[in-house]
């Protein structure tokens, strides 16, 4: 097994401390020399251990400032860790910024050679791939134009196509997959899939849960420089979301606490999903709402998404003509969704309580979840029951 999937990156006990100087110039330092310590420090990474097997696609996710980009840069050797070390093998290409090293005054052609060299290609290798690079970027006509005259789309397309032709064993990607127009993005995604099938290792930082869910077979969730989860993507994204939600709640509480005293006007006590056994396509979502302070109007918003964060459906009661009770106390409410033909897998239900003006009283991401059983025929997001018809003997 070890020869099949050798470790390509081994991060061992890596911590990174940033010291933020407030004064840059010699004058400022001299002036402030008397003061004890004119620098703030914080730990961007704390004791990170990760082994990445060759051929896997790892998503690094986390909030802003959780240290994921720092970790990527440490793996890439751009930042040296304060303690610990990183072991690596094979050829690495880092796509931390598209077109890093492009010189505006040089032509596209000259920049291709330069950028390829920066990413580690020799001149003869670049020459061999040159037509493919230009072909992929789709800007043949402008290749001998200085890149400062390029549109931003052309610029990133050229940069991206250089990067994917570098033939790396390990590709580090930081939020750069969503470039260019839709057909080009599709091309990028196809290229990534091709990379995966060729056994290349990809470590990517992304804020798009959907992208991470679609591409990665392993997700590392970072929180305040520490690993919160390392393993399967669905769980990782759930934890990430729970974290976002906790943060959101905290900030909401912080905002509302002084005035509203912490108890929301409408509060979702409980939520449960029932799949009827007789008709397996009927899903009932039961909600228990506590009304503490009746407002002129209120409603329920509901959305269903896949465990990887792809939104499938959302609705609010404002769109229907249902009359909701509006008196102090607890109320039960059921949302029956007949004929929900979803493919196999875990689905999350997000519930929100709010009014028509857009105010949110209470919102619970992943308030309840349900599992759609395995399909009979085929697989995918929706469940179909195809019938087959064979017409025989056309040329009998």
């Amino acid at each position: 097994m070890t020869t099949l999937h050798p470790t390509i990156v081994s991060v061992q006990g890596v911590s990174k401390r940033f010291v933020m100087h407030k004064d840059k110039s010699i004058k400022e330092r001299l002036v402030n020399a008397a003061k004890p310590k004119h620098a703030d420090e914080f730990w961007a990474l704390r004791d990170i251990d990760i082994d990445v097997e060759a051929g896997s696609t790892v998503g690094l996710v986390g909030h802003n400032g959780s240290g994921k980009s720092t970790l990527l840069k440490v793996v890439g050797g751009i930042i040296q860790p304060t303690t610990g070390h990183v072991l690596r093998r094979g050829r690495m290409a880092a796509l931390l910024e598209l077109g890093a090293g492009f010189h505006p005054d040089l032509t596209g052609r000259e920049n291709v050679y330069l950028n390829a060299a920066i990413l580690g290609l020799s001149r003869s290798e670049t020459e061999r791939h040159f037509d493919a690079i230009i072909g992929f970027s789709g800007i043949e006509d402008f290749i001998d134009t200085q890149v400062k005259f390029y549109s931003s789309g052309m610029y990133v397309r050229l940069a991206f196509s250089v990067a994917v032709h570098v033939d790396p064993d390990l590709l580090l990607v930081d939020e750069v997959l969503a470039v260019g127009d839709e057909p080009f993005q599709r091309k990028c995604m196809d290229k990534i899939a091709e990379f995966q099938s060729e056994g290349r290792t990809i470590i990517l930082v992304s804020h798009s849960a959907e992208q991470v869910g679609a591409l990665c077979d392993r997700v590392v969730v970072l929180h305040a420089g520490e690993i919160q989860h390392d393993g399967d993507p669905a769980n990782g994204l759930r934890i990430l979301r729970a974290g976002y939600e906790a943060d959101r709640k905290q900030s909401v509480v912080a905002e509302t606490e002084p005035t509203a005293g912490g108890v929301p006007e409408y509060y979702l006590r409980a939520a449960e999903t029932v799949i009827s056994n007789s008709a397996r396509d009927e899903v009932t979502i039961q909600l228990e709402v506590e009304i503490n302070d009746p407002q002129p109007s209120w409603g329920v918003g509901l959305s269903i998404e896949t465990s990887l964060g792809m939104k499938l459906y959302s609705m609010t009661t404002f769109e229907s003509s249902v009359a909701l009770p509006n008196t102090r106390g607890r109320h039960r409410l059921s949302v029956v969704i007949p004929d929900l033909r979803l493919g196999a897998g875990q689905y999350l239900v997000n519930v929100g309580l709010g009014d028509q003006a857009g105010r949110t009283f209470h919102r619970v991401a992943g308030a309840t979840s349900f599992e759609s059983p395995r399909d009979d025929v085929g697989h995918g997001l929706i469940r179909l029951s195809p019938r087959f018809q064979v017409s025989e003997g056309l040329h009998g």
Partner: protein
Amino acid sequence: MAGSISSERARSLAAQPLEAFGRSEGFVRGTTQSYRAIWAQRGLLSLLVKRELRARYKNSALGILWSLVRPLAQLLIYYFAIGQILGVARSIPNFAIFVFVGLTAWTLFTEIVSSGTSSIISNSGLVKKVYLPREIFPLSSVGSALFSFLVQFVILIGATLVLGQFPWTANLATAVPAFLVILLYGTGLAILLGGLNVYFRDLEHLVEVALVVLFWASPIVYSFSYVHKFLQGGIIEQIYLLNPITLGVLGMQKAFWLSGSRDSTALNWPTDIDLRLWIALAVGIVFVWLCQRVFSRVQGDFAQEL
């Protein structure tokens, strides 16, 4: 098919050793590793030099000729202002060649040091986003400075030919250590100051001032005989001669300024200039090594300081 590609890749990866990255090695032990990394990037280095040269003269009608305009303008100024008006030329035969030799050597040094000092900051986009041995940025400044030096040098040789002053003597051998001394100290300073400039941005301005002072501390527009006459070979003259750039300039003058040895009886360079140059060269090698080691110490935090 894809499966075989991927298992092929896995096999070749398994054959490679896991190498440590980003570990700060000891001050001495990391030397070979650093040099090997730089050597591996020599192709990129030459591309960076070309980029710098090409980008510098793109969209300008005269192009590369501009690299000559500045030294030629300086030559004219010094020739008339100092040579003719102040009368220095009367005691320095072939004053134009004398000044141009000194200027060519000096320009090489200043160009290396001043563009090397700002090299890391001006390439911050790359430093922050791609891992490369960062020494290649100051080294690419050295490369482009060498190119302008070459252009000037060709002009210099051409001028000596036209004026019938081609220095085909044994003194020409002094050019080798003289050139290397200037190159080594320039390179060392470029690497050291380029690295430190990331942390102390004032260095760039300080270097500018220091270069102006150093220009007058070397015998470029006046000859060494003036210095010798004034200091009479005392301890201060020895201090004056400790400056490796002064030695380099003197060595270049000995090699290329034919009149200095043929038509002049004054002491235009110390008699033991060659020995001094070779010593300076040996010290210079250690100096460059030290500068690179300091650089590799400070470069770890570049990405976050820029």
